[in-house]
């Protein structure tokens, strides 16, 4: 599965980077979202995959081995939530900028502070 996921991650990064460089501010934010997905999967896959054994210690035992790696999961969990916060902020910023400037073209926004 690593091989397939590696390609998925590559495509996610490629499309994310490509979208970041569009002139439309909406596409830029979509690019951010794609990058966030790519990054989550990158951390998840790079740490090694284990099929279907969640990192939960069964009742009656003190510790487990041979479960999915819990550490990247903890990292990704907060990353997902934070990327939501960042995206929400970016979206509202774009919305507000569009309202104020009257365009979603980033090239037209570059001179608005002068």
């Amino acid at each position: 599965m690593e091989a397939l996921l590696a390609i998925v991650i590559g495509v996610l990064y490629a499309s994310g980077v490509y979208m970041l460089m569009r002139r439309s501010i909406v596409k830029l934010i979509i690019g951010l979202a794609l990058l966030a997905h790519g990054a989550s999967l990158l951390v998840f896959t790079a740490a090694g995959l284990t099929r279907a054994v969640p990192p939960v210690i069964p009742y009656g035992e003190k510790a487990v081995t041979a479960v999915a790696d819990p550490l990247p999961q903890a990292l990704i969990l907060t990353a997902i939530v934070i990327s939501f916060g960042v995206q929400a902020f970016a979206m509202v910023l774009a919305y507000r900028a569009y309202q104020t400037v009257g365009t979603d073209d980033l090239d037209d926004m570059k001179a608005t502070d002068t």
Partner: protein
Amino acid sequence: MNSLILRTASRFLLILLFQFSIFLLLRGHNDPGGGFVGGLVLAAALTLYAIAYDVRSMRRFLPCRAQTIIAWGLLAAAVSGIFSMFKGQPFMTGQWGHFDFLGLDLHLGTPLLFDIGVYLTVVGVVLIVIISLAEEVEDD
């Protein structure tokens, strides 16, 4: 949105999902779940309700403004770390204890309080975004 089925469903779903979110929050330490997921479930339920009716009706369910929920959440999370300092341990060392509550043996600790803080913060942040945007839209 004006859909009778959605409206009726969302009302029941709200109650159910609220209970489910608390369930996820409380069991999160031992089973899949936790403050993040629990908070998101409640926020999603409230959002659904806001879509079915409108944001004003949804806000009736909130005891206070969304900002205040965030503030309480952060406060709870930060305060949970302080208890250990009274014992001379570093900030945020988990403290656990057994409490007898109406004959139930409760196993409670500061990480739970921390998770409640996470829960409240997540709920507050999602709501503040939804409410701000929706009211902006409704105003225009």
